[in-house]
């Protein structure tokens, strides 16, 4: 279906799903002209609220996402979903199966679901997920839900891509030591312990709250000896719970919620917490900060990509580099001196202005 760019943008602005899907493919594949497309869409970006869902495989991210979408639709909000699953590092292939859990909203015209493969990216998203979220934002969705691959401990890209990050855990996610570890436990704005009807769910919630209470300063300096802690006056779990319920514009302490997604339980409280977090971001200035950071990250990435393309796809540069190999072998030049010289001789190339 060959389609000129203007026609695509006209269809996009007219709200046609096929045009949105095409635009996303152009961006996902960084096809020629994708930067022009993003430039045209840029003025429309910044209205949608972006919710990130992350957690280990099988924790219930897609099922909870499905329930959230249904609930948002009852409020007549339009929702775009980006669901990421892993690409094989061996074949590049992928099996994208998140739609299976989202059948209930499959035919809803106010919902758009897009599956993405990670394509070699290791942070739990694909390198293009943030840009795809921008495209959905420009299309006019009120909410964008970004679902990561099933994560371990260190896939944290979602934290800088979403406004609000929900970490979904299950009772089998581990003991109190796991809750203390660095990584994914640090990025949650909201914790959800799903499968709350299984043994250990309450214990895990307590462990997380204890960790959060400790993080908040209920440290051993404050806590009396191990025995006989006056829990009425000093209870880290209560500190965490109280803080999570309060609307403090200065500080956000993650809420720890329980859900049973298979029965649809707990979703209302989760959405209330999401709204509360978004209000906090608005009043605290955090939202502005996150969005500015996203813009900064994007510029960094575009610069890196353009430098790479301009330098290493330039035959003259490659030929020159080959001539330096002898010098480096002979010891009269080093990789560092060659790199410096290459940068200083490539000025016109880097600015995109050919001499």
């Amino acid at each position: 279906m060959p389609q000129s760019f203007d026609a695509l943008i006209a269809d996009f602005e007219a709200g046609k799903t096929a045009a949105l899907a095409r635009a996303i493919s152009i961006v996902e594949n960084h096809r020629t002209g994708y930067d022009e497309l993003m430039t045209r869409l840029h003025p429309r970006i910044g209205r949608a609220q972006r919710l990130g869902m992350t957690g280990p495989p099988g924790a219930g991210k897609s099922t909870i996402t499905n329930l959230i979408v249904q609930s948002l639709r009852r409020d007549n909000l339009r929702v775009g979903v980006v669901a990421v699953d892993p690409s094989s590092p061996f074949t590049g292939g992928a099996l994208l199966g998140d739609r299976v859990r989202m059948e209930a909203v499959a035919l809803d015209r106010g919902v758009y679901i897009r599956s993405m493969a990670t394509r070699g990216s290791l942070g739990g998203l694909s390198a293009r997920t943030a840009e795809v979220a921008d495209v959905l934002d420009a299309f006019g969705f009120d909410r964008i839900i970004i679902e990561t691959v099933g994560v371990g401990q260190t896939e944290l890209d979602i934290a800088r891509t979403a406004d609000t990050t929900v970490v979904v855990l299950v009772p089998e996610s581990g003991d109190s030591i796991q809750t203390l570890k660095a990584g994914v436990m640090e990025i949650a704005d909201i914790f959800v312990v799903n499968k709350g009807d299984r043994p250990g769910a309450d214990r895990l919630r307590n462990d997380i709250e204890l960790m959060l209470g400790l993080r908040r300063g209920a440290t051993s300096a404050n806590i009396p000896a191990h025995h006989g802690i006056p829990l009425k006056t000093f209870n880290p779990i209560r500190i965490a719970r109280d803080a999570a319920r309060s609307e403090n514009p200065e500080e956000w302490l993650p809420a720890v919620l329980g859900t049973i997604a298979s029965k649809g339980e707990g979703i209302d409280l989760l959405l209330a917490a999401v709204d509360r977090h978004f209000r906090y971001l608005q009043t605290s200035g955090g939202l502005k900060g996150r969005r500015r950071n996203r813009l900064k990250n994007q510029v960094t990435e575009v610069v890196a990509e353009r430098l790479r393309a301009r330098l290493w796809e330039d035959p003259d540069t490659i030929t020159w580099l080959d001539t330096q190999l002898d010098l480096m072998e002979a010891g009269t030049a080093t990789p560092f001196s060659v790199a410096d010289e290459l940068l200083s001789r490539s000025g016109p190339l880097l600015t995109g202005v050919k001499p």
Partner: protein
Amino acid sequence: MRPIRVLVAKPGLDGHDRGAKVVAAALRDAGMEVIYTGLHQTPEMIATAAIQEDVDVVGLSILSGAHMTLIPRVLDLLRDDGREDILVTGGGIIPREDMDALEARGTGRLFGPGTPTSELVEYIHNWFEAREAQTA
């Protein structure tokens, strides 16, 4: 080259998804991005997913005998949204004369039981390369 995107779906009411899963895994192993939607899909759900996901290929698995109803409906819905460029292929228990009729109506090749998965992979690869050469 970007990966080929394929939607693998089971329209209709039969609950036998082993074949669809084998095909999905084979296409994944051949380096394709396979969007798997599971059982009991209506033609409307399949066409909507194909358009939202901007796939190159839709692969349908039908063992219920309803292929003469379901497959043309998918073709029509894709055409209504201007996406007749998507290859609709598939397989299952489909008599030869029905395969001929469906292919005449605009599907790609349809495959019967016992087809080696390598044949599907090769067919999709060849179709994709021919189309890319055409649009380039």
